[in-house]
């Protein structure tokens, strides 16, 4: 998979490395900015209040 991506990147090794780095950073950005904030409330790690089990209804 990654080998396939690497082979299809243009340019020489340095250009490929640079593009890869940019791609990795873009993925990390999307994860931190959109995916994780969306996923976090769905996971049961960070509920701090006492309630009557209505949290899911919120």
């Amino acid at each position, binding site marked *: 998979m990654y080998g396939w991506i690497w082979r299809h990147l243009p340019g020489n090794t340095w250009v490929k490395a640079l593009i890869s780095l940019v791609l990795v950073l873009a993925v*990390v950005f999307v994860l931190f900015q959109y995916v994780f904030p969306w996923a976090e409330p769905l996971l049961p*790690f*960070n509920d701090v209040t006492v309630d009557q089990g209505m949290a899911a209804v919120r």
Partner: protein
Amino acid sequence: MTATGHDEDIERSAPPNRPRRMRRSVAAVFSVLGELLITAGLILGLFVAYSLWWTNVLADRAADKQGDEVRRHWAAPSPKGPGKLDTKDGIGFLHVPAMKNGEVLVKKGTGSEILNEGVAGYYTKPLASALPQDKKGNFTLAAHRDGHGAKFHNIDKLREGDPIVFETKDTWYVYKVYAVLDQTSKYNVDVLDRVPKESGKHQAGRYITLTTCTPVYTSNFRYIVWGELDRTEKVDADRTPPKELR
């Protein structure tokens, strides 16, 4: 077992490069699978970094900004005279020396959109909190144990007798911890009662209740700390903190 025999038959009758190509495509499938698993592992690692570090960065930034705003409001002379309590920006700051985390802005509500900004929230449901200035009642607060500012991370450092100080525009409310419940069900809303019986009290008074999740990094249970008002102090011109905070 007969299936193997069939396979052998097929392989034998196939062109000689067929098995090698098949082996290669199987290897390719496994290598993609392996890369996907590695990727999943890295994403989970990033999620941990996000939860325990990045949300703190964001929340502290948001809380600092809002805290500054509240302080600015307090400093500005109110043009309309004593208006009604402005609960939008926050009603004051919680200082808990034992938690060693400075001041925590307190806002109305305990929804995640509020608590995620690195503040403590006072309950509006299931049971509405009293406010510190009320004659009797229970001032009930929640904040994150980890991530999003982790304002109550060190709640387990609180011992009986430790001060919890709440600062409003014109008053310091000095509470003393008198009871700790280090693990209770997340459905135990009785801890928020006006007179929290589980803390051993039976008469109305001016109480404060801190709630957060426990054990750290999970939310299986809730950790509760109760305090009772010891005294109040007027805020002077220099906002000199009470002796507990000096």
